[in-house]
């Protein structure tokens, strides 16, 4: 388990670094696919099988492909013209390192930091429990419906914004 986690973590972080530094945007989108796949492996390690499948289907199958389409629709040539990072990139790097340091410091002072995982009750089926929670009126049916309304609104908005009136 620990070996698998460490390999996945290295893959995720290396792919994420390539996403933010790669000058070729198609390559950046493909590195994003690799990072997202690593996150799906983490979900599987955490016994969240449904989320692992959803991660592959929605993030890799839809969002990453949408990114690649957007790159193809907006490029003049495959390579970005000019530098990939703006001229104040070192300030961004500094702020990011500070955020990471601050988060690590805050978390290391929290009492549950090195907690080990809670026992799953025997016969507990996370997928059916998730389905029950999503449609049960005394759980999360309202946020679930609001999320679907949000998706429809975003879809209509995206079509409206990207529609070519000419």
């Amino acid at each position, binding site marked *: 388990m*620990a070996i698998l*986690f460490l390999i996945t973590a290295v893959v995720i972080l290396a792919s994420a670094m390539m996403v933010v530094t790669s000058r070729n945007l198609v390559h950046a989108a493909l590195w994003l696919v690799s990072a997202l796949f690593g996150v799906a492996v983490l979900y599987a390690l955490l016994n969240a099988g449904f989320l692992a499948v959803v991660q592959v289907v929605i993030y890799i199958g839809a969002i990453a492909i949408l990114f690649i389409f957007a790159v193809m629709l907006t490029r003049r040539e495959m390579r970005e013209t000019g530098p990939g990072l703006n001229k104040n990139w070192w300030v961004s790097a500094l702020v990011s390192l500070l955020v990471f340091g601050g988060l690590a410091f805050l978390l290391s002072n929290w009492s549950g*930091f090195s907690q080990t995982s*809670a026992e799953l*009750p025997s016969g507990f089926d996370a997928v059916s429990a998730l389905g029950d929670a999503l449609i049960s009126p005394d759980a999360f049916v309202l946020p679930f419906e609001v999320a679907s309304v949000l998706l429809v609104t975003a*879809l209509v908005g995206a079509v409206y914004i990207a529609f070519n009136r000419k």
Partner: protein
Amino acid sequence: MIPLSWYLILSAALFSIGLFGVMARRNAIAILLGVELMLNAVNINLVAFWRYLDPVQMTGQVFAIIVFAVAAAEVAVGLALVISVYRNRKTVVADELDMMKW
């Protein structure tokens, strides 16, 4: 067993890398790629807290699914905006989109 801290540190690192991408990249699509990394870092946290603190309550996973929906909506509208801007201005470099700056 893996302690919770490993997941938290990994997700903090992923969030910071995404933050760097959002602040440092010039291309608007690359900025959206950084936002995706940050949303994934948040999702790792949510699922790890669900598994380590209270796996019987499904709150963490449900929250992660809501984040999926928000990410899908964000990327659809964001890329539509980028494509629309590209059609009108022939550029996707965020620095050059300054017509609302006086």
